[in-house]
């Protein structure tokens, strides 16, 4: 769908690495250019027209994000540099204040590094503990297993809503319901789901949500931290400095601004935030339901074809996101990626930043294709054709 909107799709490429980042439609590029060419001023300096315009556009983007994830208040939307920064802010700025020795943090072995390492650091600092939710045979998270893993010491459950290698969708809403009955917070890493599915934070009832703009047609260097207002009020800013303070006379008298500004010290990524707002408008103009349905159909199409290649070992046949991970039997994934690259097919080889996943799946590395709505059946056909001849892969991988 909508191929004509993307300048990158005019290049001679087949891009199947949308889990890493996505292409930008012309309207997003134009919006960013407009900021740099028509009203390139700083924010929060409303003394002159172009700066006033910056504030309007910047805050308008916040409102667009709020609506997009159905948050109650604009103050619940904090602009960050990406999902990684958002997750670090949550782990340090919020849980850093509350976690005590022996408290338990519950994650899984299929999380992205950005939803593991901030927690590792926290438990090291606080002498707390990481526990893992056992996964079922498909490496999925079930509510039953969450219940089994929770103890009276569990303080927070932090999960990707869709994982970046297996592509499975977690029952976040049910987990929140159970967790909240037990006074446990839930953090949702939405990096791989917000770009592909309708997200409703009120319906899900998550306490915190992190996602990145660049994986949803927006610019790099911009992301979002959502938190329930009463929780964000408690969050300790990771950065102090300009923009976030009300007044300061000496170290004992620092007065900070209200949310959301308090958590956005320094000159923000203005172009990024405005670009993200435009990207969301663009996604909404297509419709998240339609995007989801299209990707599911395309995934089924891909699986039906890939499954016929006998030496292809597909790791996640069942999951229903646009992520398909597989190996060509006997050929190192990176060599297959190099082979595909010769035909200008972009796929990712690797452990995809989910390094502890290896312990879980026993598969060290794999190839991953990750689809977006601008991919087509013809992209899949080209991939399948290239993978259909193993001798050719081995012959041409060098």
């Amino acid at each position, binding site marked *: 769908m909508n191929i004509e909107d993307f300048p990158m799709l005019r290049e001679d490429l087949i891009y199947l690495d949308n889990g890493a980042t996505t292409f930008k439609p012309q309207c997003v590029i134009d919006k960013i250019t407009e900021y740099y060419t028509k009203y390139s001023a700083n924010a929060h300096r409303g003394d002159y027209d172009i700066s006033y315009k910056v504030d309007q556009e910047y805050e308008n983007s916040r409102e667009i994000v709020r609506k997009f994830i159905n948050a109650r208040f604009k103050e619940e939307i904090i602009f960050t540099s990406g999902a990684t920064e958002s997750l670090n802010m949550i782990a340090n700025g919020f849980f850093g204040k509350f976690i005590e020795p022996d408290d338990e943090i519950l994650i899984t072995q299929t999380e992205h590094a950005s939803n593991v390492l901030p927690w590792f650091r926290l438990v090291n600092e606080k002498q707390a503990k990481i526990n893992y939710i056992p996964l079922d045979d498909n490496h999925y998270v079930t509510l039953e297993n969450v219940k089994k893993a929770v103890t009276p010491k569990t303080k927070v459950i932090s999960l990707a809503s869709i994982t970046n290698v297996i592509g499975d969708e977690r029952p976040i809403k049910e987990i929140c319901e159970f967790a909240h009955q037990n006074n446990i917070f839930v953090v949702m890493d939405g990096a791989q789901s917000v770009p592909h599915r309708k997200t409703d934070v009120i319906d899900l009832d998550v306490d915190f949500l992190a996602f990145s703009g660049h994986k949803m047609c927006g610019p790099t260097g911009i992301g979002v931290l959502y938190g329930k207002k009463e929780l964000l009020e408690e969050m300790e800013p990771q950065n102090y400095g300009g923009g976030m303070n009300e007044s300061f006379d000496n170290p004992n008298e620092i007065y900070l601004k209200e949310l959301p500004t308090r958590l956005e010290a320094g000159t923000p990524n203005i172009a990024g935030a405005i670009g993200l707002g435009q990207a969301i408008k663009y996604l909404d103009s297509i419709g998240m339901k339609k995007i989801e349905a299209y990707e599911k159909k395309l995934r089924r199409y891909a699986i039906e074809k890939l499954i016929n290649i006998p030496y292809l070992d597909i790791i996640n046949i069942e999951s229903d996101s646009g992520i398909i991970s597989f190996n060509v039997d006997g050929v*190192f994934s990176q060599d297959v990626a190099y082979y595909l690259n010769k035909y200008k097919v972009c796929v990712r080889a690797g452990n995809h930043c989910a390094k502890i996943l290896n312990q879980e799946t026993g598969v060290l590395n794999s190839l991953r294709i990750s689809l977006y709505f601008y991919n087509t059946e013809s992209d899949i056909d080209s991939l399948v054709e290239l993978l259909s001849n193993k001798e050719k892969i081995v012959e041409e991988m060098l």
Partner: protein
Amino acid sequence: MDNRNIIMNHYTSSPYKKDFNPDLNYQKIETKSDSCIDHLNIYVKFENNILKDAYFNGEACAIATSSCSILLKNCLNKTVSEIVEYIKNFDNMVNGKDFNLEELKEAIVFKEIVRQGHRKTCAYLPYQGLKKLIDKR
């Protein structure tokens, strides 16, 4: 043998690639790429400044694996300073500078391949690891 066969032989059946439990006389070098998933462990044993024994294992692409195998083959029984020279020579080749063809032996198979930008990192990865260890000595 043509270049392709040399690479494939070292990739699929290197005599230097094996799982083993090194004793204390071996030093371990862990080489990992920043940009890809190549990950090789190299084990070397020096005696009187001479590389007496070397093995490697791990998971990496055909280029990194075969390059490692050829590196160890070429460096066995060389002195530390000879190895330093050899690495420099390889470095010159992959960076398009003048180099001594004879010294490199089978390693010249990578001469063309490293023109594909990211493959250069793969071929050079084991060299980087060995160099780091020697620099520390």
